[in-house]
Each structure stands twice: as C-alpha cells, then as structure tokens.
C-alpha cells in the first residue's frame, strides 16, 4: 500500500512539473511580450518594467522564479484586467466548482443506476432505452445539449405555459442550476452508464453470483450486495478523466448559460488574446485535475483489495 501511494505521489509530482515546464516555455515561445501595445515604450521604462517582473534575468532563473510563484499560488497577472489571476480564480471558481460538483454527482448517481437497470433488465426495452441515452450522450457535445435544453425547456416551455420552470441564465435560484448541471453531466452520464452496464454484465455471469442465488438470496440482495459492489470498480477508475471532462466542458456550458464562473473568464480571455490569463487558468485547471486524479487513484487503492494486498507482501 505504501509503495502504491509513493508511486502515485511520484507520478503526480512529475506530471505537475511537466505541466509547469510546458506552460513556461509556451509563454516564452509566444511572439511579442506583455508590454507590446499601441504606445511605444521608452527603452528606460521598458528596462524598469522588465526588471520589475524579472524578465531581464536568465531563462533558468526565470523558470525557478516561475515555479516558486506557482508553489505560492501566484499564477501571474492578467494583461486585460490587470489583476492577479489568483484573485480572479478565487472569485469565479466557486461557481464553476458548484456547477461541476452538481454535474459530477448527477452523472455518477444517474449513470450507475442506469447502467444497473440496463444490465439487470438486459434485452428489454429498458436496456435499449438506456443504451440509446448512452450513445446519444457520447455523440452529442455538451454545448449542443445545453442549447437544446435552453431553447426547449427554458424558452419554449416558458412561452407555452407562462410558468418559469427553468431560468436560462445566471447562477442564483435553484431553477437556474438544473439545466446547466444536466447539460454538463449528460456526456459523462452516458460514459458511466455504458461502462457500468458492461461491468455489471461481466459480474453477473460470475460463479459467485450463481452461488449467491443458489443460497436462496433475494434478487435485490444479489444485485446490491454482490454484483454492484464489484461492478463499480471500473467506474471509480474513470472518475479522474470524467472530472476533467466536466470541468473543461464547463467552459462552453458557462458561456451558453451566462454563468459567471472561471470557464466564462477563460473563454473571454481566449477571445481577447489575454495570454497570461490563458496560461494561468490552464495551469490552475491542470493542477486541479492532476490533484483530482491523484485523489481518485488513492481512493481506488483503498477500495480495491488487490492493491492493498500487493503492498502487504
């Protein structure tokens, strides 16, 4: 177990370092610099500016500074807003996190249940319906799901009934949170339900399920106590990539539903060529997801008895 944890820590550190190096050198490879603007800057002022931000130092020293800043949670300053990126993140990420967690929870719970339903009622209409949802979810990008929901459930339903079931913009009342969270979770829900179905079918064919049935256990007990517990393992392993999909998917969903989250800022900075903001946000997202992956891996180690046993030797 300890070996497993150490290995995961090692991977996480190396991956983080690779991300840092990548962003640093990409920022350096970009043409122009942060002070290139409409006005010509006198060379003396330029030298002062460069000294202030440490741009006159050799590249190795700049990199060390960069890593140091990163470790202190300093992601640089946005050119466009002229504010520290970490401040912008701390103000807006709460919305993204709120949206992301809701979407993730919904995707996991609904996806697992749908997968169980499809596998238990294999070959019936339930199975077909669940797999139809799965294949649509995998094939329709979240920005399309979002727009469709916004148009039909937000706009048309409101016009037809006169009752505002769902708000289509913002992030305040509960009815403004349903559609974006659903749009964001749909793709992940589909992936999870597909995975859960395959894994459940695999488990249900195992001998110990037959044994459990032969002992006279009720169907419900066999499914929930014996099958689901084992079948859920593959779902845990994809939670990292799913979290990544949900967080990055939020870029477009936040744009469609005008949610003041970090994703919306990110898309705006792309449009306005705010390079430092793009790099800073990317680094933040990257770090967040690498750490999320680490947590998932650790959790997996605790859940999966095979990993535990390996370390016990």
């Amino acid at each position, binding site marked *: 177990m300890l070996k497993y944890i150490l290995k995961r820590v090692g*991977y*996480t550190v*190396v*991956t983080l370092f*690779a*991300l840092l190096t*990548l*962003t640093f050198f*990409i920022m350096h*490879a*970009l*043409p122009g610099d942060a002070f290139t603007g409409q006005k010509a800057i006198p060379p003396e002022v330029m030298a002062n500016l460069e000294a202030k931000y440490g741009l006159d130092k050799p590249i190795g020293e700049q990199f060390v500074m960069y890593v140091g800043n990163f470790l202190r949670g300093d992601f640089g300053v946005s050119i466009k807003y002229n504010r520290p990126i970490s401040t912008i993140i701390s103000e807006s990420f709460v919305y993204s996190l709120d949206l992301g967690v809701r979407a993730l929870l919904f995707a996991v719970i609904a996806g697992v249940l749908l997968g169980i339903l499809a596998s238990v009622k294999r070959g019936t209409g339930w199975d077909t319906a669940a797999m139809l949802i799965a*294949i*649509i979810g*995998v*094939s*329709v*990008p979240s*920005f*399309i799901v979002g*727009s*469709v929901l916004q*148009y039909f459930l937000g*706009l048309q339903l409101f016009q037809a009934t006169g009752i505002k079931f769902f708000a289509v913009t913002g992030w305040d009342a509960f009815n403004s949170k349903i559609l974006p969270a659903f749009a964001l979770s749909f793709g992940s829900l589909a992936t999870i339900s597909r995975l859960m179905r395959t894994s459940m079918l695999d488990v249900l064919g195992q001998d110990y399920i037959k044994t459990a049935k032969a002992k006279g256990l009720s169907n419900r007990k066999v499914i929930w106590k014996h099958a689901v517990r084992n079948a859920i393992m593959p779902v845990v392993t994809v939670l990292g990539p799913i979290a*990544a999909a949900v*967080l*990055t998917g939020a*870029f*477009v969903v936040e*744009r*469609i539903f005008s949610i003041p989250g970090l994703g919306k800022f*990110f*898309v705006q900075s*792309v*449009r306005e060529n705010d*390079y430092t903001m*793009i*790099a800073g946000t*990317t680094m933040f*997202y*990257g770090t967040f*997801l*690498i750490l999320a*992956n680490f947590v998932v891996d650790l959790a997996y180690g605790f859940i999966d008895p095979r990993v535990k046993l390996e370390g016990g030797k």
Partner: protein
Amino acid sequence: MMDNIERNKFKWVGPDIESGEAMARKSVTFGRDAMRRLFKNKAAGVCLVIIVLLLLLTILVPFFSPFTMNEQHLTHTNAPMGFVCTNEEQAGVVHLFGTDALGRDIFVRTWEGGRISLMIAFVAVFINFLVGVIYGGISGYMGGLVDNIMMRIVEVINGIPYLMVVILLKMVVGSSDPTGIVSLIVAYSAVGWTGMARLVRGQVVALKEQEFVIAAKALGAGSSRIIARHLLPNSLSIIIVEITLAIPSAIFTEAFLSFIGMGVTIPYCSWGSLANDGVTVFQLYPSQLWIPAICISLTMLSFNLFGDGLRDAFDPRLRR
C-alpha cells in the same frame, strides 16, 4: 415392401475418394467473415451509408452550389430555410438552409465547414495512428527498460488533461498559422497519439510471446519482418476500430475549440465555428444553430455506432 423392388434397379457406384475429401464450402477468411457480420448489423450499415453521404455532400456541394462560401446577399440577411433568393443574378435560386447574419448561404457554408471539420479530424487521426503505431510498436517489441521508460512518458502525458495541452499548443502554433487549421491538427496530434500507442503496445506484448512468432524467429526471420508480417497484421483489426472511434473524438475537439473561439479563423469556417455563430442569434433564428449541431452530432453518432459494429464484427469470440 422392400422385396417388391428389383435388385437390378440399383447400381454400385463405388466410393469417390476425390469428392469425399473436397471442401463442401469455400473456406471463409477472417476478413470476409468480419464483413459479413458487419453488414448483418443494421445499425452499422446505416451509419456507413450516412458517413458516405456526408462525405459526398462535403466534397460535392461546394462545387455545384450556385453560391460561394463568402458571397454576401445583404438584401436578405438571416433568411429562413428554403428562402428564394431575390438577388438579380440568382433570382429564383433557393437558399436551402437560409442565410446567416451577413447574408451568406448557410447550405454551402455547412458543407464547406464540414469539409474542414472532417479534414482536420482525418488528418489528425492519421497522424495519431502513425505516431501511435510506431511508438507503441517499438515500446512493446523492445520490452524491458525501453518499454518502461516509454510508457512512463505516455503516462505523464496522459496525466495532463489533454484539452489544456491542446489549448496551450494552439496558442503557440496558432500565432503563426493564418488559417487555424494546421495548428488545430498539430495541437490535437501532439497529445492524441497516446491512446493508440498504449493499445498497440499491449497488443504487441501479447502477440510476441505467441508460438507463431517464436516459430518465425526460429526460422530466422528478422525483427522488421516479424513486426511487418506477423505483429501488425494481427493487430490490424483493433487498430481499425480505434481509428474509427478516434474520429468522433477529433471532431468533438475541433468543434469544442472552435466553439470557444480557438478554432479555424475567418474567412474559413467549420461546424464548430458555425455552431459558435449560431449560438449568438439562436433565440431569434434557431435553425442557424440546429444545422451545424445536427451535422456534428450525426457524424459523431455514425462513427461511434460504426466503430461499435466494427468491433463486434472483428471480435473473434463472436465468430461462428
């Protein structure tokens, strides 16, 4: 009963050794069998037809359309679907999908955009295929320390969320790429090959210990012959499935990046950028979003289902 039949009505013909040994049916090759099973699968067949149709439309429509992609008809901007053109030269010609906010014909733009979307997807997936097969092949065949190091590198690349890398790379390459097309391909292929590399490596590792490879080695076959004649042909079916399933993911990435404004640059368009334009006006003219949205979804759906069908068709456990 039997006694009534005369013996001379029967004749001893003797055994025919030749025909007894002959094959009753022609032997079915693996490829033929897979094709047969693929076409038995109705969903996969329909998807293949849809894919071919979409490809034909993207190739042919721009040639035969009466309008060009960037031609503006300012007298009827945001025209509805099926609007009859009122321009003097083209009076009577129908804008099948209507026009956009700048009066451009959406029908021709949809297929021009599709051309770019599909081209980006195909080229990117092809590069991923090349890099992945070579990288995975070397890693799996060499084994030992080389394999260990190469796979650790893949694991680190996989650890960084790929959209982040794509966005960062797009930023760098994009600044020297006026169309935005090349940078999309470069950015996507830079990280997209890891899945293929893992798959090929796994397959090669599993195959290289098999008896027929050992037999080939014993007969004096060199590494290149073993890889080219034994390992790759045996991995071909899963590689084809992986390629088919990688195309929708490439289309998605292109659409996603174009949608957030990092895709192809004006005057070029793609399905993603068309959807992006459509979102801004979609409460008033919803069809401008629906059309690219349906194209993207239909293409992804067809490739996904077709890939699933291929996987089932190639699966030797399902072979009968």
